């Protein structure tokens, strides 16, 4: 119990720590949510392009191999 009362300073120390943790956690959740949402949209838009790019590169490799 003494750990929570902290010699009468618990009423200041605990809210300070709780406020810090809650604020940080809130920002983390908000950032993570936005990040995953954006990542989904981005992958949907660009994955196809990247696959096409790889296919084109492979074709080029094959062609250069034939030339050699």
């Amino acid at each position, binding site marked *: 119990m003494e750990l929570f009362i902290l010699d009468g300073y*618990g009423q*200041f*120390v605990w809210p300070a*720590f709780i406020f810090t943790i809650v604020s940080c956690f809130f*920002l983390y959740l908000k950032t993570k949510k936005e*990040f995953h949402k954006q*990542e989904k949209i981005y992958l949907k838009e660009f994955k196809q392009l990247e696959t096409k790019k790889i296919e084109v590169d492979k074709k080029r490799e094959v062609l250069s191999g034939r030339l050699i």
Partner: protein
Amino acid sequence: MFKNFFPSKILSITNNTINGLVILLVVVVVIGLTYSLFLSPPDYIQGDSVRIMYVHVPSSFIALSCFGFIGIASICNLIFKIKFMPLLAKSLSPIGCVFSLISIVTGSFWGKPTWGIWWVWDARLTSMAILLLFYIAYILTWKFINNFEKANKISSIIGIIGLFNLPVIKYSVDWWNTLHQPSSITLTSAPTIHYTMLVPLIIMFFGMIIYSLIIFLMRYKTEIMKFKLNKKKYHK
């Protein structure tokens, strides 16, 4: 070092790296909280209220550092027109904003038992409140101005003007008579606090820096993806 902030480098960072950092953060924070709340000794004058220092000091440091980076990025953006600088600065702003708010609130919780008052229009406290206002103005500029170039210009100006506030915050305790105590840790001299308090403070510092890095990586990656998607839409 500079090349590590290039969008292609940032986009190549996998989610596993971020998850690894989160695990490291949890470990560091658990150790830091155990030390700062239970193991470190109370101060001989301030008693157990000194424990607030373990969240107040690192958050103030990060709030100031983030705006320092934003200011430098704004200068680089306006003068050298480095394209990814506004995205970098924009990603740092919510981190700095949250930490300056934490610094002010935890400072109030520390001020009440120490000074007998929650808030005073003291030079350090007022300049810190001004920093929070700069952060809010910076974030709102990006939020409410839809034109990228316009938002970029206005936010850069805010970033540069806000930069002048940083030395005021740092030296306010030396320049004016304030209720706020002078710095216990400086770069030029040895710390004036005992190692039993310095160790948890360093652990909490480390934890908050890892936390900021995680948020920064996620936000910067988000901003780069948004930018690329908008660019693609524009070219269509």
